[in-house]
């Protein structure tokens, strides 16, 4: 079912249903614990009879499994399927002369301009701030991540941050559309326009212009350092936050930390045509590889969001309810949430809760 309209971005553009009613989704496990998390998703889907078929590609810069052809294969698959699940493709630290990592190139080639992270407190798991419900929307194709650096004089490096009106408007519009669709009340733009008067000033101005088209949504703005301070003192004052690239990276991680860490926060990236589902805080977590300790909650919740995007409402709720029930019961908890269970223990618990779902 494809509904189009002047301000719909990709919310309603789901892949056409196939004759055998299975959806094909591209899967890029990535590095670190990515493959383990993807296995968790596949196991849960299999147990729940979810009509999704995954097309896997192993693209990795650190494991020497990256090449131009691989990247093209992934892109072609994504363009056909329109929906993907992805782990983090780790960027090796050594400067190899190629300034843009594979992760960023993928983002740019598919024009995945909007990153949405859902920061929700998990019922049954207490943190210092409970009952949080924030949405963080980050522009992720320009800004500080433009990969434009050069050494103008020996010992002096210049790094360019690019802000354009077009992309700023686009992300602002996305944020307000999202807020409208999800029934949210307020959008707060995060910036540092008092120092970066032209760059962030342009971003802020674009947000303000778009805000006027949505009179029902309250619009505010806040400076990034104050925003961080407010998030640790009183995060409840925020609803939807929209910001350029680097600040998004910071706030995503900060907010993830507020509700329990990188293991519990789902996220997705959107372009006008594609949707990629991943975790909210993107870390490969290399030290956990092979130890069966990673928390699959974030990836499972993201998979549930993906099912909703595919209009598989029933299966989406089935997966997310099962995950939330396991967390709430508190008996099976991975290390990051203070427990001793392994990844497989958690997946098993989720699968068990799938079968015993209440008749609806």
């Amino acid at each position, binding site marked *: 079912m494809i509904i189009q309209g002047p301000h719909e971005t990709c919310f309603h553009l789901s892949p056409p249903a196939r004759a055998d009613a299975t959806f094909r989704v591209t899967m890029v496990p990535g590095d670190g614990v990515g493959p383990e998390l993807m296995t968790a998703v596949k196991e849960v889907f299999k147990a729940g009879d979810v009509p999704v078929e995954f097309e896997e590609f192993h693209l990795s810069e650190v494991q020497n499994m990256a090449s131009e052809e691989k990247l093209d294969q992934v892109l072609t698959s994504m363009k056909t399927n329109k929906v993907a699940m992805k782990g983090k493709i780790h*960027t090796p630290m050594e400067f190899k002369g190629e300034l843009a990592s594979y992760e960023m190139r993928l983002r740019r080639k598919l024009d995945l301009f909007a990153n949405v992270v859902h920061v929700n407190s998990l019922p049954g798991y207490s943190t210092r701030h409970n009952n949080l419900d924030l949405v963080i929307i980050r522009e992720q194709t320009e800004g500080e991540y433009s990969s434009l650096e050069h050494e103008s004089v020996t010992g002096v490096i210049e790094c360019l941050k690019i802000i354009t*009106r077009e992309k700023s408007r686009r992300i602002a519009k996305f944020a307000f559309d999202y807020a409208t669709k999800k029934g949210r009340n307020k959008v707060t733009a995060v910036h540092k326009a008092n*120092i970066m008067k032209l760059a962030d000033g342009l971003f802020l101005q674009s947000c303000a212009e778009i805000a006027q088209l949505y009179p029902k949504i309250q619009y505010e703005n806040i400076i990034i350092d104050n925003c961080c301070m407010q998030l*640790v003192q009183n995060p409840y004052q925020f609803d939807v936050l929209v910001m350029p690239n680097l600040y998004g990276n910071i706030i995503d*991680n900060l907010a993830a*930390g507020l509700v329990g860490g990188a293991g519990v926060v789902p996220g997705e990236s959107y372009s006008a045509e594609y949707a990629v589902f991943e975790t909210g805080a993107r870390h490969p977590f290399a030290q956990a590889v092979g130890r069966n300790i990673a928390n699959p909650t974030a990836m499972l919740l993201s998979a549930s969001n993906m099912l909703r995007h595919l209009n598989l409402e029933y299966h989406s709720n089935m997966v997310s309810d099962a995950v939330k029930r396991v967390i709430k019961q508190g008996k099976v908890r991975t290390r990051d949430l203070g427990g001793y269970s392994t990844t497989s223990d958690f997946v098993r618990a989720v699968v068990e809760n799938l079968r015993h779902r209440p008749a609806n």
Partner: protein
Amino acid sequence: MSPAVMQTVTLIPGDGIGPEISSAVMKIFEAAKAPIRWEERNVTAIKGPGGRWMIPPDAKESMDRSKIGLKGPLKTPIAAGHPSMNLLLRKTFDLYANVRPCVSIEGYKTPYTDVNLVTIRENTEGEYSGIEHVIVDGVVQSIKLITEDASRRIAEYAFEYARNNQRTSVTAVHKANIMRMSDGLFLRKCREVAENYKDIKFTEMYLDTVCLNMVQDPTQFDVLVMPNLYGDILSDLCAGLIGGLGVTPSGNIGANGVAIFESVHGTAPDIAGLDMANPTALLLSAVMMLRHMGLHDYGNKIQTACFDTIRDKKVLTKDLGGNSKCSEFTAEICRRIQDMA
């Protein structure tokens, strides 16, 4: 305590609540009989010869002579045509390091306890170079500058600070996976300097990982060193952990031995002149100043009196949850100091 030599400190009261909290600090120092002679100066920007904005020459002269300054909040007018006063001070004295110790205040409860870290931020370059251009209409470019010299200087200061203050580790915060050349250079310099300080543990961490971990367990951090923008954000984040800008001290270290300690909150024009302001931030910055000058005894005495007053909860200003006046809060601290003698 043997009578120490009187040392001169340039005092810049600032705007808004600046004058009231400055006089509170002076009263408390008098009660503690600290050997400080205050020289008050004003730093409204004036246009010098050649049309360049600068701070008044008598302020500069005083600071160059005394080398130590204490500053209240300065307002940054939006369309005054001149850069912010803080920026001007920074450029005039080459204040390259901003140091913010963040220690949980017993008695002022926040969800985060046992915070004890120091953020050291490179304050002259990085993303705040102020170099921006409109390339074409609708496309703006902002330049982030990282130089070898500034990176080395801040790394050296961080390790020296760690050594002088008995801190065990220094963590460089960066985003060299994305900004490979610029943050890569910063990181390389930190690594080189770490070689000369083998007694201090050196680690590196991505900025996003630091944020993720900081809000979950701030006790894992000790001294953090980073370029300008990350420093700005992280230092405010850490201030939020201990209770906000109203209780956070800050110091700026410059070349040529100049050091200016300041409160980092705003001028609070809405409560200026109403005797409602909280002088804690400026007072703790003054304590930081005393320690920098080697006057640890006085510093400890004043800090203890301040923390005891807050822990007692009987006389607190409004922002700390009480309803006492600034003068009452100040008097209570003075009383405790005199009782201690």
